[in-house]
């Protein structure tokens, strides 16, 4: 039904903006954390030692910087994916079967591949500085849902490409 369709699109649009806001907030948090690592390292090291989460709190500052850098990169990828999704949703209101959407979905697929690849060093760095039983050490690594999302994006891109070609053919049929 058209009403349900437009409601769903409206909700999706709102959710995408909300997610963008959350990612932006997370990015600010990462930047602030980087600043704190520079300005307040002795306090942070002392706090980290007390938490008993980290293996060697005194020497882990470079790894924490690397961790924040990777997190920032993943968040940048998330912003890119969300912006592509926003463009997709915007086109869905009028005409979704356009070549640009197939390209967008393929770009989303590659962005998700990038995010998944960034999750590996994230996992290595996290597990190198944290106690293996802590949640912190389990950050990153292989994510089955992420791999499924990558496959989903590429399959959808192929579907959109084929759908666009079929519709072009149909439009040229008299």
């Amino acid at each position, binding site marked *: 039904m058209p009403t349900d369709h437009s409601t769903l699109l409206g909700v999706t649009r709102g959710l995408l903006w909300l997610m963008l806001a959350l990612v932006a907030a997370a990015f600010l948090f990462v930047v602030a954390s980087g600043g704190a690592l520079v300005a307040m390292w002795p306090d942070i090291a002392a706090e980290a030692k007390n938490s008993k989460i980290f293996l060697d709190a005194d020497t882990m500052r470079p790894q924490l910087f690397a961790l924040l850098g990777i997190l920032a990169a993943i968040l940048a990828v998330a912003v890119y994916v969300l912006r592509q999704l926003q463009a997709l949703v915007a086109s869905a209101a009028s005409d979704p079967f356009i070549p640009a959407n197939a390209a967008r979905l393929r770009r989303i697929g590659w962005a998700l591949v990038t995010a998944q690849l960034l999750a590996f060093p994230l996992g290595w760095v996290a597990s190198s500085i944290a106690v293996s039983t802590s949640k912190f050490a389990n950050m990153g690594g292989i994510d089955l849902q992420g791999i499924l999302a990558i496959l989903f994006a590429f399959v959808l891109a192929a579907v959109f490409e084929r759908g666009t070609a079929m519709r*072009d*053919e149909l439009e*040229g*049929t*008299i």
Partner: protein
Amino acid sequence: MAIVVKLDDLLHAKRMTLTDLSDRIGITLANLSILKTGKAKAMRFSTLEAICAELECQPGDLLAFDADG
């Protein structure tokens, strides 16, 4: 395109305009124009049937294959 649409010739022979044909067979002038200028990618049997019935011709009179096209 290798397939040549000879709608112009048939209309001329019948002293009919594209607008007349459009009115009689119920296919839009825009679509008939696309067909006439050879820009159509495909043609429905129902369209072929309607044109042939109205212009009293065979599909072969309307379409031709041009190997050099």
